């Protein structure tokens, strides 16, 4: 566990929304020196608190065909290993985006990206369902993304205020 300083927390809050902001500007916003920011970033990267800098892409706005599915997976946990081994077997497939252990009616939630419905269903039937400990799967295809990672995808935010107010 990494203990965060107040500066770390502020840095993370900002770059979680905008990872492209530079260290100079971060220093201005947080009222500190650029060196402090760089030290904080290096530390957070080394500790694995920052585990990547990604770009959010709305593929729906392009002609590129992509299909995303959420798959509920029920498994038999294994003695001594629990769910970890089966989770690892699943997340090693590159087409798998995320794997979560879930409380409730099923065990693992897997999100998957493919080029077509066919490709996704083939993954589920041929690879996922045939794993020894998998008891059953339910596949949900995503039809439309309204909001992802805190970002609303369906409309642009517009400033509706008057230009000048007292």
């Amino acid at each position, binding site marked *: 566990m990494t203990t965060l300083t107040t500066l770390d927390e502020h840095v993370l809050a900002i770059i979680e929304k905008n990872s492209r902001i530079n260290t100079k500007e971060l220093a*201005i*916003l947080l009222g500190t020196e650029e060196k402090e920011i760089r030290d904080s970033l290096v530390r957070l990267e080394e500790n694995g608190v920052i585990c990547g800098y990604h770009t959010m892409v709305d593929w729906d706005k392009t002609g590129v065909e992509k299909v995303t599915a959420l798959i509920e997976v029920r498994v038999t946990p294994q003695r001594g290993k629990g769910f970890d081994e089966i989770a690892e077997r699943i997340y090693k497939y590159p087409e798998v985006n995320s794997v979560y252990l879930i409380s409730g009616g099923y065990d693992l939630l897997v999100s998957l990206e493919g080029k077509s419905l066919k490709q996704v269903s083939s993954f589920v039937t041929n690879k996922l369902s045939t794993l020894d400990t998998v008891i059953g799967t339910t596949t949900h295809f995503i039809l439309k993304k309204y909001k992802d990672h805190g970002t609303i995808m369906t409309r642009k935010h517009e*400033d509706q205020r*008057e*230009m*000048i107010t*007292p």
Partner: protein
Amino acid sequence: MSENKKKQVLSEKCLGIQPSGIRKFFDIVSEMKDAISLGVGEPDFDTPWHIRDEGIYSLEKGRTFYTSNSGLKELREEIARYMKRTQGIDYDPIREVFITVGGSEAIDLMFRAMINEGDEVLLPQPSYVSYLPCTVLADGVPVVIDLKEEKEFRLTAAELEEKITDRSKILVLPFPNNPTGSIMTREDLEEIARVCIEHDLYVLSDEIYGELTYGSTHVSIASLPGMRERTIVVNGFSKAYAMTGWRLGYACGPEEIIAQMVKIHQFAIMCAPTTSQYAAVEALRNGDEDVAMMREAYNQRRRFVVFKLREMGLPCFEPRGAFYVFPCIREFGMTSEEFATRLLKEEKVAIVPGTAFGDSGEGFLRISYAYSLDNLRKALGRLSRFVDRLREAEG
């Protein structure tokens, strides 16, 4: 008929009031479609969703009737609790707190409830545009105190004392300040409180930006010894909770004055909007985190704007409250209005000239940082280019 003297249609008092300087500038801006603005006096955040949801829910439940004149009891109780936990002041939610249509209504009502013809209202400027006309409409005499940049636009006891006469009655204390971003510390207020008590002055403490201070928490003058009984605290939901359009404010103070303010409110307004009042209860109960989030965002932008202004060589003191920076543009030898008009025409950036808030705003601009960082970056880039060009032209 023709022999009848023609009736004066309009009130002379009203005709005598100058239209707000901001209005004039607004008319120029509204002709420019593609201008970007740093001229807005309201938050850029939407009202937090849980607060809006509570307003919607109240409509669904059919809560569409008048509330009592003073406002919902549960809202007044929440306000009393808020004043207790933030300022340590006890107000009776029934007799000493009431709900208004924005803080602005409370300002108007206090003047009308207290002023007799010729009473003087001490008015520090630069400050919000409504104190002066509301004083005049209530037959009061505004006595302007010009605040000084050297003092970071704070009010000092000496400046106040200099303007006190036998007719002085109310001191307007507009801090954290729009347009300067200035705040008053506890020590500053103690000096002012001493003068108020000595000269039997009442205080209109406009604390609408009270939640937006950076590096220190806001102190209400009403929390100082001997001041509660001579202060009307005006506050509201517009700035702290990003609820400008809901039009909801409140006043807290001694029963004797509040009762008269409620009387006028009852005849002029009846009650503040019911939907807004239900939403405001939610804001006070569960809105602290939203306020903290917005305050941090404003604080970051504040540092950014001050840095950029200093980088382009425009002097400004570091504002500690509200969401404005007040840079000085005297070096260019033009009035604030000329500067703002040229900036608008040449770079399409709308910034309000300091003179919109009183003559002592001459030589300054009010820059609002209630904008996204991208917008600030773009607008300040244009301002910087404009300033460079002016300096080049001067050689």
